[in-house]
């Protein structure tokens, strides 16, 4: 089975091989399109990661607050809700169901809907990790913060969270790599990201193997880059003499 890599140099409309492999202006090659699809994957994933980190930290924190059982219950319900529904079904909920039930959402661009779906799905997992990180700290840390006269937000901000985040960097790393992989599900609502590209261009060019290979390699590169970034953060943030622990296997 001979590979034909020139397929990426072809113009998307005429099918002619373009000199230099890249088109200009409105004439684009499949290579241009591939980079644009990669851009969509990266922007969906990174925006969703920000949503997931913010919401996940919030939910994770309220599940550990002392003497607020209702907030903790709300946090637990949030995690159970988003963890027990498949991501693809959640994407359909955000894309088809919610705009039908809440009319103002009809004006939301698909990008926002997919980012919310992916971000909130991941927030439940990050909430679990943040909670585990806070609970892994000795109780004395919390009491020490209280004894110094810190308010609850203050001792979370200055005492608990800085150490909790350091502890959970390894699971956060794999969750961030997961978000890139999970963003592939956005193909189902026609976001022009890498998987959608693989499906569409694979069919259009009748060269699916080359196209799938390129897409697969780009996913692997994305995951590797995220992994290296987190390894760098972990190294920079390391506190001398403090050994952080990883968590168990499993998950996607």
């Amino acid at each position: 089975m001979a590979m034909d890599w020139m397929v990426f140099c072809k113009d998307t409309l005429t099918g002619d091989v373009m000199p230099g492999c890249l088109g200009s202006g409105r004439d684009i090659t499949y290579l241009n399109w591939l980079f644009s699809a990669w851009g969509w994957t990266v922007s969906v994933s990174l925006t969703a990661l920000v949503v997931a980190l913010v919401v996940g930290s919030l939910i994770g924190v309220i599940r550990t607050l002392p003497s607020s059982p209702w907030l903790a219950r709300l946090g637990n319900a949030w995690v159970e809700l988003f963890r027990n529904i498949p991501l693809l079904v959640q994407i359909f909920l955000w894309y088809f169901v919610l705009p039908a039930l809440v009319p103002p959402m009809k004006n939301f661009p698909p990008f926002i809907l997919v980012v919310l779906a992916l971000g909130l799905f991941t927030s439940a997992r990050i909430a679990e990790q943040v909670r585990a990180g806070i609970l892994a700290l000795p109780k004395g840390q919390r009491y020490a913060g209280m004894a110094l006269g810190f308010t609850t937000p203050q001792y979370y901000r200055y005492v608990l969270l800085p150490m909790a985040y350091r502890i959970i960097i390894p699971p956060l790393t794999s969750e961030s790599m997961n978000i890139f992989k999970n963003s592939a599900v956005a193909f189902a609502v026609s976001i022009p990201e890498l998987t959608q590209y693989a499906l569409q261009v694979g069919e259009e060019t009748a060269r699916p193997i080359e196209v799938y290979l390129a897409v697969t390699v780009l996913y692997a590169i994305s995951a590797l880059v995220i992994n290296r970034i987190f390894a760098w953060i972990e190294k920079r943030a390391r506190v001398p003499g403090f050994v952080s622990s990883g968590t168990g296997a499993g998950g996607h």
Partner: protein
Amino acid sequence: MLNLDFSLLNWGLIQNFILKGLWFSIFLTAVATAGGIFFGTLLALMRLSGRKWLDAPAALYVNVMRSVPLVMVILWFFLLVPLMIGRPIGAEYSAVVTFVAFEAAYFSEIMRAGIQSIPRGQVFAGQAVGMTYAQNMKLVILPQAFRNMLPVLLTQTIILFQDTSLVYAIGAYDLLKGFETAGKNYGRPIETYLMATVTYFVISYSLSSVVKAINKKIAIIR
């Protein structure tokens, strides 16, 4: 505000559209769990064998599978399996092969952690009473590894059940597809998506409650 009408939910709808999909999702989960644990255990044994020619290919396989999105793996297998066996296969058959191959990589990491959690003394004890490698694994190490890893294996099975919805990419008829087809036929897609949500939630939540109960039981035994 849209008027929701759930009156279409009756036995006829369930029988005509949902059951077929539900059975396939359950079948796929069961086969992928059984096959995934079997091949995953083999991969884990290869990685722990201490022989480079066994360890390296297993590690490569596991790492490649784990760095590619499941949707892409589903598309790859749907493309490659017919090329390899020389005839077209159905989406459902392709999905089964894909999930066994994909989950084997994830289960192998769980089994590897499980085998490594067994104290070295157990291995030596098996060797000391004259057991071969196979006997030692079968009678001493693996039973304990399975027991230690049971909660993680079950959690992975719940994730696997949710992931079966991704066969949407190749158009296999699973639980989600069943609801979607019903929604199209009755012109009520919003209602059927909501029903699909509730169905997946109820199944996954019940399974995870079972896992929690098992966790508690194991915690008491120790």
